[in-house]
């Protein structure tokens, strides 16, 4: 069946740059975010490749230690604050979530646009810092090093501070939207699991981010006026800074991974064509992770000199974060059982997620164990672990989500063959890059090293080759996805034959999302009751 692009949709409804920069449409704001966030991803990716290039040899190739320290700090800061935290909520959450719950927009459209502008301001500060001396503290800003560093610490702290507000406002907006703007009939347990995940994420965003704000503000005051809270010379305590920092930054890890898990739930259900197994367990495990995530920050500090009592409590609670993640993985696999599985490219991303995130999870258990963490803390084992979670988890999920919703966002389909090649490249490249880092880490290779002992050169070289494969893979994705926007074949309203509400709108959707107020007619995963087709069907409205 040939599909056509509808005549009027949100992309051409109004034209001109002003219609974009002043838009209040959540879909357009999602796209504005996509441009900025993906550019940040590219920028941080370049730093990653520079790092891997320099590490081909223990001797200096082109970066001395000072430049290297800047490269890894900028890689971390840009990846975390500018890419991975806003990525899924701000791009896909913005675009898809209101459609999924049958809403015309988010609760506060102006605040939504303001969040984007705040993000842009933060981005500008970060870019300014890049040219005003860079930053060499690592993304963790540990005192007293960060209060002494001669690099552009203040601009980068301002950037992170400002970006925090963007994150808070997005989270606030989503919570209210999910509470107040659900379509009639959409009870909490009829919500798609992606919405549950976005909800849990938003809770963390509003609860944890203010503490980051005050922490960074204190650090700035420490540098500018010398209030001495974290300064050992004035009776301050640097370990206290670590508590303040990780109270935000550990839950932030779940800001990064939870929405990814939400996407995977959608992908597994759609491409297995099957009702999701253990819906409530998956939904509540998201909330469980969000809550427990607040109680475990001290596991970043087992060797920091915190009290042994604290270390023991934090380690004990850490193991309880593992359980909800395990529940999710097993429920996803159970969903595939007796399904009708189609291995389209979004599903391949989801399968990569399952495997890589499992490795990330298992190595997390190793690190949560007190005695072993003493050995592995701040080594490449940690580096590899969180890349398995963040890249193997979140990045796989966001690209799975982009491939899944790309036809909905633009109305056009990308080249499936290239998409499959790309996912295989990323999967292979990723494992080549990071698996050896587990071995290096256990053997004692510390992280953030510009140079290293010759015994590690073989493994570092191997790792760098993998990074190159990944880099080419991401480039390939950029090419065919952008090509699809202009030249792709029209995809039709529901190319994957999914049952969630966003697929009942035309692709691309109209500016107001729905004609009238839609009413929920079937659950998001009722594959045993309803047979979805790739065509527009009139839905019931109020």
């Amino acid at each position: 069946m040939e599909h056509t692009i509808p005549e009027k949709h949100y992309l051409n409804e109004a034209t001109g740059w002003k219609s974009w920069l002043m838009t209040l449409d959540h879909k357009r704001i999602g796209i504005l975010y996509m441009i900025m966030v993906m550019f940040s991803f590219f920028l941080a990716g370049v730093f990653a490749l520079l790092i891997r290039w320099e590490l081909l040899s223990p001797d200096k190739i082109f970066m001395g230690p000072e430049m290297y320290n800047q490269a890894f700090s900028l890689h971390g800061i840009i990846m975390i604050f500018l890419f991975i935290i806003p990525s899924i909520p701000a791009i896909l959450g913005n675009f898809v979530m209101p459609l999924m719950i049958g809403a015309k927009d988010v609760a506060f459209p102006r605040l939504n646009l303001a969040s984007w502008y705040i993000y842009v301001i933060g981005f500008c500060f970060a870019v300014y810092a890049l040219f005003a001396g860079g930053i060499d503290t690592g993304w963790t800003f540990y005192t007293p090093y960060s209060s002494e560093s001669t690099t552009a610490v203040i601009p980068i702290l301002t950037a992170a501070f400002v970006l925090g507000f963007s994150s808070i406002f997005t989270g606030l907006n989503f919570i209210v939207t999910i509470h107040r703007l659900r379509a009639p009939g959409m009870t909490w347990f009829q919500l798609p699991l992606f919405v549950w995940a976005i909800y849990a994420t938003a809770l963390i965003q509003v609860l944890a981010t203010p503490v980051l704000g005050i922490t960074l503000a204190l650090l700035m005051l420490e540098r500018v006026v010398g209030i001495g809270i974290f300064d050992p010379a004035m009776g301050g305590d640097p370990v206290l800074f670590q508590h303040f920092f990780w109270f935000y930054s550990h839950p932030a890890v779940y800001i990064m991974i939870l929405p990814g898990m939400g996407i995977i739930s959608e992908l597994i259900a759609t491409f297995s064509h099957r009702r999701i197994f253990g819906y409530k367990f998956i939904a509540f495990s998201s909330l469980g992770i969000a809550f427990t995530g607040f109680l475990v920050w001290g596991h970043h500090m087992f060797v920091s000199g915190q009290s042994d009592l604290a270390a023991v409590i934090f380690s004990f609670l850490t193991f309880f974060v593992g359980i909800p993640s395990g529940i999710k993985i097993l429920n996803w696999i159970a969903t595939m059982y007796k399904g009708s599985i189609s291995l389209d490219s979004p599903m391949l991303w989801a399968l990569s997620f399952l495997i890589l995130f499992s490795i990330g999870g298992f190595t997390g258990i190793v690190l949560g164990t007190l005695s072993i963490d003493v050995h592995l803390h701040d080594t490449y084992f940690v580096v590899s672990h969180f890349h398995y979670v963040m890249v193997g988890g979140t990045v796989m999920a966001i690209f799975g989500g982009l491939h899944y919703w790309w036809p909905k966002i633009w109305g056009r389909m990308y080249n499936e063959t290239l998409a499959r090649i790309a996912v295989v490249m990323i999967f292979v490249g990723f494992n080549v890059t990071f698996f050896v880092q587990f071995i290096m880490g256990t053997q004692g290779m510390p992280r953030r090293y510009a140079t290293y002992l010759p015994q590690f050169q073989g493994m570092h070289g191997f790792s760098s080759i993998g990074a190159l494969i990944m880099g080419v893979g991401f480039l390939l994705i950029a090419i065919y996805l952008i090509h699809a926007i202009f030249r792709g074949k029209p995809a039709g309203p529901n190319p994957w034959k999914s049952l969630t509400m966003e697929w009942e709108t035309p692709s691309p959707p109209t500016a107001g999302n729905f004609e009238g107020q839609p009413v929920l007619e079937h659950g998001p995963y009722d594959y045993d009751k309803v047979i979805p087709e790739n065509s527009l069907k009139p839905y019931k409205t109020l």
Partner: protein
Amino acid sequence: MKDDAAQRHILPLNLYLAVGSALLVLTVITVAVAQMDFGPMNLLIAMGIAVVKATLVAMFFMHLKYDNRIYMLVFVGSLLFLAVFIIFTMFDTLRRGDIYEEIAEPYLKEAVIYRTAETTTASSHPAADSSQTAIKTETETETSEQ
């Protein structure tokens, strides 16, 4: 759900005035009590009165008593997470050096080993005041076993 009257719950003027007066009286009480010394109870009394005042403001001025329970949940939730933050951090700060405090004792006197500050008086070890604790005795027994 569309019951506008419930949303616009108008409280009687006298209630507002009564709550306001109660807050003022409690302020006077807390200042008066602070002039007396109850030892370690001082902090508890002061905080207890503050909590009562805060509850009055939240319940009546902020209408929590009459509004949808979800707002109460949001507010209490924020306090809960704040409590987690403070208490868990204190698991560290109050219990530092549990295991080896005594061993380090001779060194505490010269604890400012960072660049010496000129403007401030010498600070003591942050954990120097921390009291003997349960875990300490526990670990000591283990030491003696070795």
